[in-house]
């Protein structure tokens, strides 16, 4: 039950806080996936609200592929220090030792190995039985189908055809040994909600979301930022300075920039309101094959 006067953002906020508290109360070893993007920033902000005056009673987990934008890592370290949080960084060392990069193995294989497999390794290693993630149902068709508390088998698999019924706010938090859940407090938020909330609550985000002159090359229709000298330039490619920003942040070779002059939050939001493409458009991994996100999710991707 809710008061009809609560604005939709306050309702979404309360729903997310409720999910955080349920999971912390019911699971032994929760963790929050922290990907450093805007959704993670909102997620962390909500976690701090849920447990205030305590700090969130779980660590953050960053699965570092080694290909994140440098500004993301700097931002991560600053936030963790400022809020007094515990951070677990995990890299799939076998993948790194084998030289797996987006350029050598393709975005799909690279994501499987460095992100999905890396995540599974980290969850197993630390025996986390619940992992918060910032996924939203408006992002992609298979995400739109997922429960707020989404059950995973002992091998981290999602069975989309046989999800637990989830009625009211009664989340079934019972899992067997080795099994776990992914918890998605932001399930019912839209991209616009996220931006509005960031603005309303003054939540810090990585500066890459704001437009600035950055060196980019255009490849396969995607503007790729030359974040460091590991980006192999193809013949004829010369980085050019363009005013760009990112609508979503991931590994820099897999994340496309958009041409933009929006250097402030109000400008970003008004640009969004006029946008004609969805934010995951800049993500290369969704385009590999039909149903690719569902497949990745079944295998353990967030």
């Amino acid at each position, binding site marked *: 039950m*809710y008061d009809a006067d*609560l604005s939709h953002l306050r309702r979404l906020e309360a729903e997310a806080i*409720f999910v955080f508290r349920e999971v912390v*109360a019911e699971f032994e070893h929760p963790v929050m996936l922290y990907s450093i993007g805007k959704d993670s920033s909102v997620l962390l902000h909500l976690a701090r*609200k849920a447990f205030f005056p305590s700090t969130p009673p779980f660590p953050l987990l960053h699965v570092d592929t080694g290909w994140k934008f440098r500004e993301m890592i700097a931002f991560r370290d600053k936030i963790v220090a400022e809020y007094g949080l515990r951070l677990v960084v995990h890299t799939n060392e076998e993948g790194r030792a084998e030289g797996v990069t987006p350029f050598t193995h393709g975005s799909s294989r690279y994501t499987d190995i460095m992100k999905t497999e890396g995540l599974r390794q980290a969850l197993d290693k630390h025996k986390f039985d619940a992992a918060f993630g910032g996924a939203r149902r408006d992002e992609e*068709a298979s995400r739109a189908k997922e429960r707020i508390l989404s059950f995973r088998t002992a091998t981290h698999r999602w069975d989309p055809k046989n999800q637990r019924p989830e009625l009211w706010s009664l989340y079934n938090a*019972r899992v067997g040994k080795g099994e776990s859940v992914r918890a998605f407090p932001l399930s019912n938020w839209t991209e616009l909600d996220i931006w509005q909330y960031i603005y309303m609550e003054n939540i810090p985000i990585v500066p890459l979301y704001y437009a600035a002159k950055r060196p980019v090359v255009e490849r396969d229709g995607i503007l790729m930022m030359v974040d460091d000298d590991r980006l192999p330039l193809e013949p004829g490619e010369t980085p050019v300075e363009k005013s760009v920003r990112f609508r979503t942040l991931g590994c820099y070779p897999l994340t496309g920039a958009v041409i933009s002059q929006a250097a402030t939050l109000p400008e970003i939001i008004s640009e969004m309101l006029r946008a*004609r493409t969805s934010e995951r*458009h800049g993500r290369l991994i969704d385009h590999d094959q039909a149903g690719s996100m569902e497949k990745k999710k079944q295998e353990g991707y967030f």
Partner: protein
Amino acid sequence: MTASSTISAKAELERYIDAQEDKGMLRFITCGSVDDGKSTLIGRLLWDSKLIFDDQLAALEQASSKVGTQGDNIDFALLLDGLQAEREQGITIDVAYRFFSTDKRKFIVADTPGHEQYTRNMATGASSADVAVILINAEKGILTQTMRHSYIVSLVGIRKVILAVNKMDAVDFSQTRFEEIRKAYGEFSHDLGFDEVVAIPLSALKGDNVIKPSANMSWFDGPTILGQLETVDISSAEQNDAFRFPVQWVNRSSSDFRGFAGTVAGGKVQTGDPVLVPSSGQIGTVARIVTFDGDIQEAVAGQAVTIELEEEIEISRGELLSTPDARPDTGDQFEAKIIWMNEEPLLPGRRYLIKLGTSTVPARVTDIKYKVNVNTLEHVAAKTLSLNEIGICNIALERELSFDPYAVNRTTGSFILIDWYSNATLAAGSIDFPLRRASNIHRQFLDIDKKARAEIKRQRPMMLWFTGLSGAGKSTIANIVEQKLHERGKHTYILDGDNVRHGLNKDLGFTDADRVENIRRVAETAKMMIDAGIIVLASFISPFRSERQMARDLVDDNEFWEVFVETSLDVCEERDIKGLYKKARAGEIANFTGIDSAYEPPENAEIRVDGGAGTPEDAADKIVGALEEAGVI
């Protein structure tokens, strides 16, 4: 970017956010039978409110031509059927959530599956909705699924319904047909407790009466679908405003702070208000309402806060803080409507877990009063509920909890049932009213079986048949095994010569025939005990294979384990604790096993322990270990 344009963008945004702040949110579901056009309607709403992005459109066009069912037209259903299996089979399996907004409201829509086998997913979507859009295919009229979904919509407490009579283009936009369906639905839904049913004729495919009034149906002067969604009043008049606060988590940020974190589930609370702790009956006073954004004076329904009390009262997760003026019911029995959502049927008497508010305790369905035939709303006698069946049941909790009738409060009056072993969500329910013990003394026949009885004990009933020579150590080992099982809370019973020969079998001697009858009676007794859910330890010399086989055949597979306590005759005779061997050798006892009567050793005993070497303790450990491994305990 110039300073002035930044300022204007900021001003534009602030105006926009102000407008957003005034907007309410409406959550609704679309439901109805398969092929009623649910997904098409949502696709149309998203499309016409310009919420389909260019890249999504491109993907949609591509998918439409590949697997679509609308020829060259865009198949809107593909926008929602996001799972690969759904696209391939052309059906909706699970609920999908979509988001759109107009100038008046923000909407979250749950598109729910029409197939009966996915009813639980439909219920999932319905449980969080304020309004239900029930689609009916104008060609087909009211179908079983229409009625099932209407009943579930009513069950989860939705009181506002839009009856969307779709595919009007296929019946030549016939007003007669529309009125026919409207009337039939009105008759059917009369007893479902809806406050309002607004019927709208439409064509989701063509867009008639979805957003724009239809030129083809000028005879209809009611609202469009979107018009109704934008204006339907969802401030629930019936909503009880008694303060309710299920405690989720106790926040101890420092030694001098103890706050109770939760979401207000009804009414409101202010600092200084008295609050009741129902489990202990104590009343505390709200000292502070703590939030990240600072303390607040008042918290209303739907707000997530942390409450600190003046007094030091023991409160943990699961407690339902309430106003002392309108107390919740506190008890361990209630009547409820439940919808069964698992392939394994409901078994009355079986021990399930119930999650009610923030409490999870063991509970049983003690009685199914009747189930509801959703086609006719008739009451049908039932001993069980199968997948997707809805029943009115009595439920008994193992511990008292506080709750409200669902009609009074959706949050404190709803629950789910969870399986102890698989952890599956088995059922969802809404509480009708509490039951006092006195009003529930009369119990109907309960179908309680061996498994149900054993589950109370969290064990698997079985018979451990200890066989071996006299003095082999059978009883000694069986006794230690029983002690070890008892320590683990297992319910056991030992049958041996001492307690059987003095009572049940005191008419029997030691002839071969009497030995056989002795074992037969013991085996039959053990069988009944297994049926009672008990782990039976039978300790008898039982020298003949055929009698041991008879005992084995009496019970189900895996319920009989032969434990061969193998001790040589020399060792047994040397021990001769009861002096029997001496007497037998002296000819004072006839037919003594090992002396003048044969012992037929087991050929395939499940467990073999050496009664000569090692201690009885070791032998018992081996047996308990094997029971553990087999999942008996």
